[in-house]
């Protein structure tokens, strides 16, 4: 019971903090707009499977995934702030287990990230994505699956870093490659075959693909049967939760 209360408390803290950061709200509106409207309109790649999918519609699920990914990674790494400003110490001496601390932080950050993702949905209507309420509702649990794993990647990285100075490195070597090689911006057929294995090894590829199948409906043919893609993400999540909680308990 007290462990659950601890998880809830840390989740609540994360959400409270997030709700106070106005600047992030603004950037969460502007960034996807830039991608969807400027980038999406500027580059109009032909999309293979169906003629009625525009490039903007094609990248829309990719931009949602990008928002989830970037928020999760950044906020996950923000546990370094907690360490630098001492608040982590206060949590670590509290009578709750490290696993609960980890889970509380993870669920809190995931909630923030999912809110960031949901904010983007209305823009879909602007660019002509055929959105229906059912598609939106089914998207949310998929977004959760995508987020959990990435948050754990962020928390794992954070538990090995001393300061936020190396954040730029993570952006360059982890975040952007994962984003570019996830099929968010171009279909797998556009990727040269020597690079294609990275595409398939990236769990976000399947996240983007599931969201795309849900949002674009029958017009889109997924890479693999959907249940297999969901299974891959589930395995990724479970692996990352195990690695993350292990690193977090060990390091702090």
């Amino acid at each position, binding site marked *: 019971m007290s462990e659950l*209360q601890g998880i809830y408390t840390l989740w609540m803290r994360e959400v409270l903090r997030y709700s106070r950061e106005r600047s992030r709200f603004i950037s969460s509106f502007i960034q996807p707009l830039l991608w969807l409207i400027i980038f999406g309109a500027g580059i109009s790649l032909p999309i293979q499977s169906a003629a009625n999918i525009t490039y903007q519609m094609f990248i829309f699920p990719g931009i949602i995934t990008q928002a989830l990914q970037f928020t999760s990674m950044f906020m996950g790494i923000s546990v370094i702030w907690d360490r630098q400003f001492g608040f982590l110490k*206060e949590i670590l001496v509290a009578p709750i287990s490290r696993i609960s601390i980890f889970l509380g932080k993870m669920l809190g950050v995931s909630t923030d990230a999912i809110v960031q993702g949901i904010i983007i949905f209305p823009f879909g209507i602007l660019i002509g994505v055929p959105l229906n309420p059912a598609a939106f509702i089914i998207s949310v649990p998929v977004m959760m699956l995508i987020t959990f794993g990435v948050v754990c990647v962020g928390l794992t990285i954070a538990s090995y870093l001393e300061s936020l100075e190396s954040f730029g490195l993570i952006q360059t070597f982890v975040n952007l490659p994962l984003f570019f090689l996830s099929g968010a911006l171009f279909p797998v057929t556009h990727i040269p075959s020597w690079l294609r294995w990275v595409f398939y090894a990236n769990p976000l590829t399947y996240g983007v693909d599931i969201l795309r199948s849900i949002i674009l409906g029958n017009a889109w043919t997924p890479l693999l049967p959907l249940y297999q893609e969901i299974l891959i993400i589930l395995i990724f999540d479970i692996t990352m939760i195990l690695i993350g909680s292990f690193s977090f308990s060990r390091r702090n």
Partner: protein
Amino acid sequence: MSHVIEVKGLTKKFNSLVAVNNISFDVDHGEIFGLLGPNGAGKSTTISILCTILKPTTGTAMVDGYDVCKHPAHVRKSIGIVFQDPSVDDRLTGRENLKIHANLYGVPGNIQKEQIDKVLKLVELDERADDLVRHYSSGMRRRLEIARSLIHNPKVLFLDEPTVGLDPQSRDHIWTYIKKLMGYQDLTIILSTHYLEEADRFCNRVAIIDHGDIVALDTPHRLKDELGGDTIVIRTQDNDRFHDLVKASGLAKCTVIANHEIKITVNNAHTTLPRITELAADHNIHIETISLQQPQLDDVFLHFTGKELRESGQREFYGMAGAMRRQIR
């Protein structure tokens, strides 16, 4: 059980560095127990072990009847901690910080509000409770941390350098609250400090720690008594020579040089002082200043460790001043 804390043969090594070296002490219920020593003496390490943050290399420590290694969760519920470094979330309000703490420590929901209001009142933050902590001064943050550490009614309160980095006025403030805590619900307080006057004024007993060892442990009063009598502080043109002369003369119980002064501990200053001046005159040593002091905890520290507590810091300061002067020229 009369002791709320029992420490036996506690040692903590960080690789080859021995931070705490085989120390033992007990703390009684309701006591204010001071750990006094320079930076890096092992005070924070000792507190961290008692708070279950660090595991000891060898030895045992019991807090409120629980072993810190075997039952850390029980120990954590029994203690409150104010860390040396700030540990509040500055993006939340004071009250939210307290609420989080109450939840983490499993304070039942129906008494949380009452308990939070009580501790806020105690540190006089009730009017600012709903402001974001980042708009607090450092003294207010410290007070919030003290309030927070009391929410779950701990048996033992650890204060690790509670006033370090605060201006004199805020330091006084903090001490007012700590004094209020004396006798508060049978609370025992362990505090570490490198301010001697704080330990002297507020602690029932003081352990002097140097290089990971406890070099002395008693009430401030008895520690000073142990030195005996009075202290003559004298500055001459040739301190080293005069120091040796006094030592050889057998007039003093103890002599040390610190900060360009000789501190001479004697049984009775009224009869010894004339002899000392005669001694200087006999050897043609010019006395620049001379004064009489009641022994202070400074002297006790000097006596047990052979160095002034803030000696190195002052030397650094002199060095900096010198460097600045050179630059100005």
